[in-house]
């Protein structure tokens, strides 16, 4: 059936068809069904909304922020929330709302970088271990288990302390402790796939092991890894904020939320908003990621309900 034939029944019927005619129709239908399921899950929808809002704010921060994030007005220092400064000003008279809005860029940047480093490493190690089997599998999984059995935050702290404070080192340290769960998941998926007929077919066609892992196995492991990544993002945000709070992450004057809380701590008893506002921002954003990850897991894996 061509698309014209569906015209009377509308897009929904075309997307929801149980017998798609083209690869594109099948794929779009899959996305459609998935997003319908996600939207039926109210908490997941709320999480998605928060995350999308975060991305939007990060992209449009210069347009949204009423003041420059590092513009100091010492005459206006430590002003409470009001019409001029909706969330008040900090100890240098900087507008807290504007700093929070610009801070989304740092938070999102850290999450994106950690994911971009940790997820491919975990995926590659897990798929290689699962497909190769034997001593390669045993060795790689031992290393993974060792990393899994160590306390993540403390290890990250020690790494940053050794490498020196700063946002790049914080990202490296977090990525270094974040990859093992992804390797475990990718390995489990690979073990289920490696005896499939399509892998045998690829082997018969002369594909090398490297090609099979990279082209046939890794793409199929991606979905479960993505769910786990989305569940971990809140944890990454919290570790990054913790490093910032201890003065080991982003350095001033960068508007990093954890560092802002640390700076506001001194004035907490009289000017509570300086420390309170960034904490609320962190909590809302990681709640968004938690809700989204929870919902994704429910939708993709009915067993976990």
């Amino acid at each position: 059936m061509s698309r014209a034939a569906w015209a009377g029944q509308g897009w929904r019927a075309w997307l929801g068809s149980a017998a798609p005619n083209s690869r594109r129709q099948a794929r779009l239908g899959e996305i459609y069904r998935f997003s319908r399921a996600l939207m039926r899950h109210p908490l997941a929808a709320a999480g998605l909304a928060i995350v999308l809002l975060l991305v939007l704010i990060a992209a449009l921060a210069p347009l949204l922020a009423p003041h420059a994030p590092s513009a100091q007005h010492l005459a206006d220092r430590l002003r409470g929330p009001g019409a001029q400064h909706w969330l008040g000003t900090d100890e240098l008279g900087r507008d807290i709302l504007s700093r929070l809005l610009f801070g989304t860029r740092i938070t999102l940047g850290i999450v994106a970088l950690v994911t971009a480093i940790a997820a491919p490493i975990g995926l590659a190690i897990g798929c290689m271990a699962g497909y190769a089997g034997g001593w390669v599998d045993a060795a790689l999984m031992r290393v993974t288990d060792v990393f899994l059995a160590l306390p993540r935050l403390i290890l990250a702290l020690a790494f940053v302390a050794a490498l020196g404070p700063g946002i790049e080192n914080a990202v490296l340290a977090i990525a270094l402790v974040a990859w093992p769960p992804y390797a475990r998941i990718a390995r489990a998926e690979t073990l289920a796939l490696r005896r499939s007929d399509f892998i045998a077919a690829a082997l018969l066609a002369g594909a090398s092991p490297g090609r099979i892992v990279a082209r046939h196995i890794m793409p199929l492991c991606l979905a479960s890894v993505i769910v786990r990544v989305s569940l971990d993002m809140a944890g990454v945000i919290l570790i990054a904020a913790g490093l910032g709070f201890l003065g080991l992450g982003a350095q001033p004057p960068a508007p990093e939320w954890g560092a802002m809380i640390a700076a506001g701590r001194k004035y907490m008893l009289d000017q509570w908003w300086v420390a309170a506002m960034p904490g609320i921002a962190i909590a809302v954003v990681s709640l968004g990621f938690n809700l989204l990850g929870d919902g994704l897991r429910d939708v993709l894996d009915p067993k976990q309900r």
Partner: protein
Amino acid sequence: MPASPSVERGAATALRLAVSVLLTLFGLLLATFLIARVVPIDPVLAVVGDRASAETYQRVRIELGLDQPLYVQFWRYVVLVLHGDFGRSVLTRNPVVEDIARFLPATVELATAATLIGVALGIPAGVVAAARQGRWADHAIRLVGLVGYSVPVFWLGLMALLLFYAGLGWAAGPGRLDIFYEDTVAPVTGLILVDSAIAGDWAVLRSALAHLVLPAGVLGYFSLAYISRMTRSFMLEQLGQEYIVTARAKGLSERRVLWRHALGNILVPLVTVVALSYASLLEGSVLTETVFAWPGIGSYITGSLLNIDMNAVLGGTLVVGALFIALNLLSDLLYRWLDPRTR
């Protein structure tokens, strides 16, 4: 007589566990060793100062064993650590082991109190959520848990201090005791609650409790979030089983079905969850202690971090890591010991 197959299997499992624990400890040692190696501070310069002659520099370098290949250095490090020598703290000028022995009890006290709170509130919350699956109570408990997973622990600690200490005056402020009570009780266990009870000094006990309640409450909330979530999912699994249908069909009260039959069957996995949550609290205490000026291992590590006192940082990391591994092992052993199916 040949050993029975079950004994043989038990021995094989024990061996596998032992190997895995040893490997993990080895990994921990390797990680701390490598971290010490990447510190951009020249340990020789730190000893001799930057005005030393080239000969002195070389002599100290050889004394410190830094001319040896890496694996020899690593071996020496392992031997030192196994003898309980973590080096000297630059900051306190004490051997790191002594420092840790002094700071660790405070952390144990805090983490234990927090776990008790988490268990006392988290398990009932999980049972109720499972019993009312999909209803508002379930959603409310889920949301409380998710917030626990989302709020930064140090921020929650600051806000708790602001509200309950500075605002309402319901709890005592930072620290473990009021200042005039400090060092009034002879340390026996290092746990002030226990020591003051042994000494019969109720004023100190009351002061210690007033100081403990906020940090333990904040940490306990995170433990609650984890324990209630796991309890809920274990309970849901049980409630779907046929013996529950039978129990209901023969007319047992719903309370008895839930709290005796279903909960009774998940106690074994719950024990492991509690052990794991205790391990994660040890880690969570790092940031909490910083906020509450709680003189535990977390404060010790963060204080040393900021002064790049690496012996202290790595010693603390080793001890917390080893405790973490021990608790993981304990939860594994408890599971095997308690669950008749794994015997």
